[in-house]
Structures are given as structure tokens and as C-alpha cells.
């Protein structure tokens, strides 16, 4: 489960390369954890902090059983579908609804974007993201992470907001 749900963030400086997130400013984000390699954004958005989720072809990252192991937006939607998330219209804050944004980047002009990142909406309306092997942050708006590494939000998913003590299915 996430160790942080939108309370007062710690005053820490992030260690990621600023050029990766040109739209991230001091005013639109706060660092909420130390850097770690133990989990990645995809796992963090799914509520996990002890393993990395990724559908790489060498079977290194964990990926939900039965979900296609492909680096596509569809596979990511399917993976979060195992946690009850379904495609929704936008990332606006709705009472009792938990939303998730999937980012993607176009690598080849004639191909669909590849998934790069997932961010989870907190009940405060802010978003929480793990930045690669760097820190977790809270940020608003969600597209403060737009840029050369994560691209932009491709789609939003939602589900009924979970109780903070609920365990996610593994």
C-alpha cells in the first residue's frame, strides 16, 4: 500500500535530472519519499513497494498473471484492470472514485505510443508518482510530468476508491 495519502509532504529535493521533466516546478510538486530501486511507477500506482511491474520480454519485471506481456497501452490497461480499474473519460477529481493516468510516448511516428509511466490520483486531487529509480512525488496537475521521458497522458482509468487498509490483489 502507499505509505503516503496526501498529507504534508517532506521538504526534500528530488535527485532526478531536471531536463527529464521540464514542466515540473517547485510550485507544482513535492517529494514524498527517498529514492529507491525497489519499485517503479507502475508498481507504485498499483500499491506495491517491493517489486517492479513491467512487461519486458526477458521476464524481469513482475506482471499480472494472465495479462499479455507486451509494452503497449492496451496491456497496461489490462494489467490495472486486474485491480478493478476501467477506462474513464478524464482525470477530474470525483468523490469516491480513484483515478489512474497512463502516460505514453511516441517513439515512431507511424506507431502507437509506448507506455512510460503511471500516476495515481490521491483523494486530495493531487497525483502521486514514482519517478524511475528516483523519489516519489505528489504533483498537480497530472501533466506536470509531460516531457521527453514520459511523453503525456494517454488515458485515464478509474475504480471505486479503496479503503486505506484494503490489500491489493497480487
Amino acid at each position, binding site marked *: 500500500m502507499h505509505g503516503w495519502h496526501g498529507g504534508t509532504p517532506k521538504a526534500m529535493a528530488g535527485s532526478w535530472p531536471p531536463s*527529464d521533466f521540464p514542466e515540473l516546478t517547485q510550485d507544482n510538486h513535492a517529494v514524498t519519499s527517498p529514492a529507491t530501486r525497489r519499485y517503479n511507477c507502475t*508498481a507504485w500506482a498499483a500499491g506495491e513497494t517491493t517489486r517492479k*511491474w*513491467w512487461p519486458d520480454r*526477458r*521476464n524481469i519485471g*513482475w506482471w499480472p498473471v494472465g495479462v499479455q506481456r507486451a509494452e503497449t497501452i492496451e496491456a497496461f490497461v489490462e494489467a490495472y484492470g486486474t485491480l478493478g480499474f476501467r477506462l474513464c473519460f478524464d482525470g477530474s477529481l470525483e468523490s469516491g472514485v480513484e483515478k489512474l493516468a497512463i502516460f505514453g510516448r511516441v517513439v515512431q511516428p507511424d506507431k502507437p505510443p509506448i507506455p512510460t509511466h503511471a500516476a495515481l490520483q490521491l483523494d486530495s486531487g493531487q497525483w502521486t508518482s514514482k519517478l524511475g529509480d528516483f523519489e516519489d512525488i505528489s504533483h498537480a496537475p497530472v501533466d506536470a510530468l509531460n516531457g521527453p521521458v514520459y511523453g503525456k497522458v494517454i488515458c485515464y482509468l478509474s475504480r471505486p476508491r479503496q479503503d486505506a487498509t484494503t490489500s491489493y490483489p497480487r
Partner: protein
Amino acid sequence: MASEKSPLLAYWPSQYGEVLKVQRLLEASIDIDRKVQAWLEFKNLIAQWHVERGATSSITDMAMCDSYLKIIAKGPDVVPLILAQLRSEGDEPDQWFWALQFLAGVDPVAEEDRGDFLKMSRAWLAWGDAEGYGW
């Protein structure tokens, strides 16, 4: 034969025992220098890799960085260096598993431990110990 390793020895009659001893010491130090050199090159590529991969979360993108591919391109000789690096990273292991799988041609990680880099690291270090890898 020492003379096969070093053309320099060909100039010296074998009865000059002192020279042969010095040469053996030289060869030992050259061997150490090669190991140090390999380690320094490896560490340099790791530093480049950390810069190159930036804030990506993609295991694939991390493995496709030029510096990571250069490490793989060094071939099986780099496996002991990777294992030593992995051991030094302790509870925060990095993504060495792609390179190890590729170079070793095996995968000692249990299916249920996929994505858990700490457990994956332990599995690879145990494999390295069993295979007699040391650096």
C-alpha cells in the same frame, strides 16, 4: 612458458634467474592492472548508464541504453564484475538481470520472485557462488 608471454624475455638467457623473477612480478602486476582497468571501465560505464537512463521506469529502456549494451558487449568476462557490483549494492540492487540472463544463458530466479529485485539479486548471487564466480 614465460618467454611466450613476454617477448622481452627472449633477450635474456634463462640462466639469469633474477631477471626471470622480476619478470614474473611484472607479469603479476600487469595481470592486476588488467583487472583494475576492467573494473574502472565497468564503473565508468555504470556511471554513464545512470545518466543515460534518467528517470525511465522501463526495464527495457534501461537495458537498451548504449552504456548497458557496451557492458553486455564485453562478453562473459564481465559476469564476475556484474556479480561483484550486485553484491555491493546490497538492499538496493540495480537492473543487472537482463545482462546476466544474456551473458550466462540461464535464469536462476523463481517465477514468483519476478520484479522483486532483492530476491532476484540473492538468486543470482547464489548462482554465482555455486558457479565459482569471484572477482
